[in-house]
C-alpha cells in the first residue's frame, strides 16, 4: 500500500502537477520510423491518445487542451542579412543559431496563447515565439526577444520550408478524452531522432505530460550515396568522374556515325 502511495507521489512529481494529479495521457504513434526513400515526397504521421483518470476513481476535468511539440535533430544554422553595398546586394550581417531543432512543430487544438497565460507558455517553451532558440551574440549565447529581426527571419524561413510550424488545428478531440494529432513531415525533413512532447492543459494549467519519439532515416540507395559522399569524399568523387567518362564514352559509341 505504502509503495503504491510512493509510486503515485513520484508520478505526480514527474507530471509536475503537484498532488492534485488526476489525468494520465496514453499516446500511440502511427509510425515510429519514417523512411526517406528516392520517392519520398513527405508524409503525415498520426498520434492518437486518450486522457485517463489517475487514479481511476478520480473524476476527469474537461474541457482539455492539448499541445504536441515535435522537435527534430539539433543543428547550427546561420541567418544572413543582405544589404546594398555599391549598388549590389551583399550578405553583410549574420547570426548563428546554435543547436536549434532542424524541425519544430507546435500542434494544438486551439491557438496556444488562448490555452495558458504568457508566463506558463514561456516557461514550458510552448509556441514558436516561446521556444528557446539560442543565438551566438559576440561571445555570449542567449535567446533574444521574439521580435528580434534575425530570430523572426529565421523562424519565417524555416516556416517557408515547412520545417517550422505552429498549427492550432492539427489536434482534434474525437471525444472529450480521445484525441488525434496530425504530424506533417515535409519532403525536405531532416534525418535523425525526433522527440515528441505531449502536454495536457485544463483551465490554463499543465496537468499531465508524456513523450514519445520517432526516427527519420534515409534508407537504401540514398543513405548509401550520402554516407559515401561524406565519409569517402575522394573515392566518391573518383567514382562520379568515372561514371561521367563511362556515359560520355557510351554516348560516343551509340551515336557514332561512320
Amino acid at each position, binding site marked *: 500500500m505504502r509503495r503504491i502511495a510512493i509510486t503515485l507521489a513520484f508520478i505526480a512529481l514527474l507530471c509536475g502537477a503537484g498532488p492534485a494529479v488526476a489525468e494520465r495521457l496514453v499516446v500511440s504513434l502511427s509510425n515510429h520510423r519514417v523512411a*526517406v*526513400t*528516392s*520517392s*519520398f*515526397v513527405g508524409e503525415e504521421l498520426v498520434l492518437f491518445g486518450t486522457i485517463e483518470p489517475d487514479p481511476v476513481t478520480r473524476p476527469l476535468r474537461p474541457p482539455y487542451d492539448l499541445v504536441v511539440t515535435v522537435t527534430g535533430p*539539433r*543543428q*547550427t*544554422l*546561420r*541567418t*544572413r*542579412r*543582405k*544589404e546594398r553595398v555599391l*549598388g*549590389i*546586394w*551583399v*550578405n553583410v550581417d*549574420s547570426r*548563428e543559431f546554435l*543547436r536549434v531543432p*532542424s524541425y519544430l512543430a507546435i500542434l494544438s487544438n486551439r491557438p496556444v496563447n488562448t490555452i495558458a497565460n504568457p508566463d506558463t507558455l514561456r516557461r514550458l517553451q510552448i509556441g514558436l515565439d516561446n521556444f528557446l532558440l539560442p543565438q551566438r551574440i559576440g561571445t555570449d549565447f542567449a535567446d533574444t526577444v521574439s521580435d528580434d529581426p*534575425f530570430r523572426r*527571419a*529565421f523562424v*519565417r*524561413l*524555416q516556416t517557408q520550408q515547412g520545417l517550422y510550424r505552429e498549427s492550432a488545428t492539427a489536434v482534434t478531440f474525437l471525444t472529450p478524452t480521445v484525441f488525434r494529432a496530425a504530424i506533417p513531415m515535409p*519532403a*525536405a525533413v531532416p534525418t*535523425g531522432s525526433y522527440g515528441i512532447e505531449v502536454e495536457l492543459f485544463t483551465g490554463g494549467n499543465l496537468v499531465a505530460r508524456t513523450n514519445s519519439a520517432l526516427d527519420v532515416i*534515409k534508407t537504401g*540507395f*540514398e*543513405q548509401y*550515396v*550520402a554516407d559515401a*559522399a561524406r565519409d569517402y*569524399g*575522394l573515392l*566518391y*568523387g*573518383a*567514382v*562520379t*568522374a568515372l*561514371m*561521367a*567518362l563511362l*556515359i*560520355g*564514352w*557510351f*554516348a*560516343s559509341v551509340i*551515336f*557514332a556515325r561512320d
Partner: protein
Amino acid sequence: MQIYLPIADLPVNVFLILGMGLAVGYISGMFGIGGGFLMTPLLIFVGISPAVAVATVSSHIAASSFTGALSYWRKRAVDIALALMLLSSGILGTATGVWLFTELRALDQLDLMIGISYVTLLTVVVALMIYESVRAILRTRHGMPATLRRPGSHTWLHGLPFKLRFKRSKIYVSAIPVWAIGFVIGFVGAIMGIGGGFLLVPMLIYFLRVPTATVIGTSMVLTLVTMASATLMHAATNHLVDAVLALILMVGGVIGAQFGARTGQKMRGERLRLLLGLLVFAVGCRFAYELVVKPDDLFSLRYVESG
C-alpha cells in the same frame, strides 16, 4: 516522377532535370561548348543550392566533353601537346578555384562571388562575340571574305620567351600565355561550374592563333580533364557533388548533344556565334538583375553543422 537527391537533400522531378539536360545538351552540341554556364544557373533556379549546382555540373561537363573529345580524337583534330601544356597549369587553376570556393563558402560570400563572376565574365565574352560576329556578317554581306586568322601577323604575345612549337596546330608560341590561359580556365571553371569552352575557344583563336581545325578538339580535352579533376576535388573537400543529379543530367546531356550537333552543322558559323553571344548575354543579364534588384528576402539561411 519525383526522385530524392541525396546530397542536395531535396526531391526533384526526374523529367524536369532530364529535360534540362536535354535542352542544355542540345545547345552545347549545337555550339560545341560544355553548356555549364547554362546548366549551373538553371539548377540554381529550380532550387538546388549554388554550391551543389556548381560542384555537380562539373561532372556533367566532364561527361559531355568526353563524348566530344572522343569524336575529335578520331578525326585527329586534337593537339595533344598543346592540351598537355594547357593542362599543366589548368589543374593548378582548378585547385586554386576549389580552395577559394571553400573559403568563400565559409565567409557566406560564395553566392555573391558566383553571381559577380558570371556577370563580369559573360559581359566581356558577349561584347567580344557580338562585335566579332556582327563584323563578320557585315563583311560577308559586302562581299569580303571572313578571315579570322591572318597568317604571319604577330602580336606582342609572340615576342615572349620560352617559345614552343606545336606541330599539329602549326603554331610557334611562348609557353607563358599558354600557361596563363590554362590557369584562368581551370580557375573560373571550379568557381563558376563551367567548363570554359566558350572562353577557351576564342582565347586560343585570338591569343595563340590556333587554327580552327584543332581548336575545339583541344579545348574539349582540356575541359574534360579540368572538369573531371574539379569533380574529384569538390567531392573530396566540400562533399557537394550529387551523383544522382549528375547521372540524370549526363544522360539527358549526351543525348541532347547529338541532336544539337546535327542542327549546328547546318548553320552558318557567324550566325551560330551571334546566337551563342545572345544566349550568353541573356544569362549574364539574369545574374546582373539578381545582384542589383532588391531581393524578395533579405535574409537567408545556411547550414553550419549538426548537433
